């Protein structure tokens, strides 16, 4: 009986039902939904359920296996944490959109066929854009439109690729796809758009930092990790992903160092972390896929925690710009401490979650002889410590005291951050329960003397570099600025060229009209005299 109900639908249908419930009862009802969904996952056996026939196609709305389950578990946890973080708001648009968005992402993870995947894929776009529009400014409206165009475009590519594949193979099953056909290539571009591959990435940095305080927390968890799940399902062992992932880990950290908006810094860092997972999927061994899935699980928690802490800062001070912040540890000590736990986790300090997950991918890279990829991932590990481990806490909570005297974050935000932080530490200290739900059996020991010492050396000396650069005045100061990225092409270059072309056309039209008025004889006079 319980197999008949796809878990994503619990959240989607529940989100709309919740509109009929007033006040506090609605929040309790909404929070109960992910808990119910999580419980349902624990009851399901592996297999295919909720299959329906539609227009000659058999759609599988619920495929349960280890890969879908681990993403399902973390998506339910993330939706519960995001809901707690958003409990103080009275904006039903955000709450309903957030929950329906989480439901769509969970629906996609359990979709067993390409058609259902497409439907949920587009639903994540349509529901999540309201988390940006809920800011209710002209700027947010424009950002949301750009975001929607990219996301829906990704869905169109997925549908086109899926139709080609179904035509070629006669099967709509969403399994390993590969790059042997045009359909496979189109679907990879579709997944790559949502996973923020280099040059397809900039919708991420454009949109997430412009969403509401709570919206960014929802957004950080689902879309990109759904893409990681889809890549792991469809393209495990596709070698080009190793090199795409390598570029993804490296280039965003340069931008993160010079970006002033701290939520945008976190978005660059999100992009960099996705790179680690993409490398793991490209390597494709059991250890590498386990590493990608484990890192996605850990990443959703510490990234949500970091976005929550910056959201709390934005909520209390009205800004999240490094150039305007500093000294907040005095007013917001709990937020400071919890942010530092997130920073330690993403940096991969021993006893924090990143340490036991990221290292699986690095080990897989070196075991398979990808020495260059391994070296870049090591560089990116030091880099992520710079911008997320040091820069975020340092410029927000320490550095120059800007004299803010604000209240600590609301209790619900602290509870959400506290739970996320507790999970980050729990996974770091005791990774076995996480390892037990990974797609393949785990034969990996993270806590060896060599691994602990080498990681501590890397991080301590990266911190030393930061200290030296700060003390000598060489570290670039936080400046009010816009950092150009590939979005410049469609926000400035193409619109200007189009405007120029339209102006030329208008001038040509005016000239032709003038000639018409002058008459033929006058034209002949002009031509021959």
């Amino acid at each position, binding site marked *: 009986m319980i197999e008949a109900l796809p878990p994503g639908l619990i959240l989607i249908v529940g989100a709309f039902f919740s509109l009929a419930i007033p006040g506090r009862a609605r929040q309790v009802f909404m929070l109960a939904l992910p808990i119910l969904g999580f419980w349902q996952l624990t009851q399901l056996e592996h297999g295919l359920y909720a299959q329906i026939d539609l227009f000659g196609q058999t759609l599988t709305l619920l495929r349960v296996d280890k890969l879908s389950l681990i993403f399902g578990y973390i998506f339910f946890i993330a939706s519960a944490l995001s809901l707690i973080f958003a409990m103080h708001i009275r904006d039903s648009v955000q709450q309903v959109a957030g929950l329906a968005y989480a439901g769509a992402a969970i629906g996609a993870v359990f979709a067993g066929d390409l058609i259902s995947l497409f439907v949920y894929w587009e639903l994540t776009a349509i529901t999540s854009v309201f988390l940006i529009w809920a800011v209710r400014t002209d700027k947010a409206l424009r950002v949301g439109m750009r975001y929607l165009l990219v996301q829906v475009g990704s869905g169109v590519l997925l549908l086109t690729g899926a139709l080609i594949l179904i035509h070629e193979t006669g099967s709509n099953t969403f399994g390993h796809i590969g790059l042997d056909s045009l359909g496979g290539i189109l679907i990879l571009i579709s997944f790559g758009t949502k996973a923020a591959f280099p040059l397809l990435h900039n919708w991420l940095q454009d949109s997430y930092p412009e969403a509401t305080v709570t919206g960014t927390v929802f957004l950080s968890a689902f879309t990109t990790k759904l893409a990681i799940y889809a890549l792991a399902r469809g393209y495990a062992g596709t070698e080009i992903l190793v090199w795409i992932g390598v570029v993804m880990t490296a280039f965003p950290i340069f931008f993160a160092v010079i970006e002033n908006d701290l939520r945008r810094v976190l978005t660059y860092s999100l992009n960099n972390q996705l790179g680690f997972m993409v490398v793991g999927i490209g390597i494709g061994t059991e250890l590498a896929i386990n590493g990608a899935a484990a890192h996605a699980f850990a990443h959703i928690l510490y990234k949500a925690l970091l976005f929550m802490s910056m959201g709390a800062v934005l909520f*209390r001070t009205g800004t999240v710009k490094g150039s305007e912040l500093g000294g907040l540890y005095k007013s917001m000590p709990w937020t400071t401490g919890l942010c530092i736990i997130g920073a330690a986790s993403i940096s991969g300090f021993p006893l924090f979650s990143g340490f036991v997950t990221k290292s699986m991918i690095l080990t897989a890279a070196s075991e398979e002889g990808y020495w260059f990829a391994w070296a870049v991932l090591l560089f990116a590990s*030091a880099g992520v410590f710079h911008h997320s481990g040091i820069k975020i806490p340092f410029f927000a909570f320490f550095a120059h005291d800007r004299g*803010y*005297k604000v209240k600590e974050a609301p209790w619900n935000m602290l509870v959400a951050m506290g739970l996320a932080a507790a999970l980050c530490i729990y996974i770091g200290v005791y990774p076995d329960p996480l390892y037990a739900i990974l797609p393949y059996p785990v034969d990996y020991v993270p806590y060896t003397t060599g691994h602990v*010492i080498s990681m501590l050396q890397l991080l301590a000396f990266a911190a030393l570099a930061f200290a030296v*650069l700060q003390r000598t005045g060489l570290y670039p100061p936080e400046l009010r600025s816009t950092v*150009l990225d590939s979005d410049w092409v469609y926000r400035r270059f193409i619109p200007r060229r189009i405007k120029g072309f339209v102006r030329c056309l208008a001038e040509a039209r005016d000239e032709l009209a003038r000639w018409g008025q002058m008459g033929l004889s006058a034209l002949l006079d002009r031509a021959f005299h």
Partner: protein
Amino acid sequence: MSQSDKSGDTPTRWLDRPDSAKKICWALYVLCAALFFADAFYEKHSHYAVEDWFGFYAIFGFVFSIGLVLSAKELRRLVMRKEDYYD
């Protein structure tokens, strides 16, 4: 949304004292030295020969971090614009 008040005077904390940053840096130097020389006290099981160099991860972390920040600083010349560039 914002509830900030920038006018108040907060009593001086330990971190605000001028010599505190110096003390933190010294603690970091000592920690780095200890970690660097820790390489002498355990047997390495490396995949690559380069990892067997004494203090490899320390040197790698320091050199590439300096390189990252200084090259990102140069990147500013190319990609940094005024805050209202797109408005």
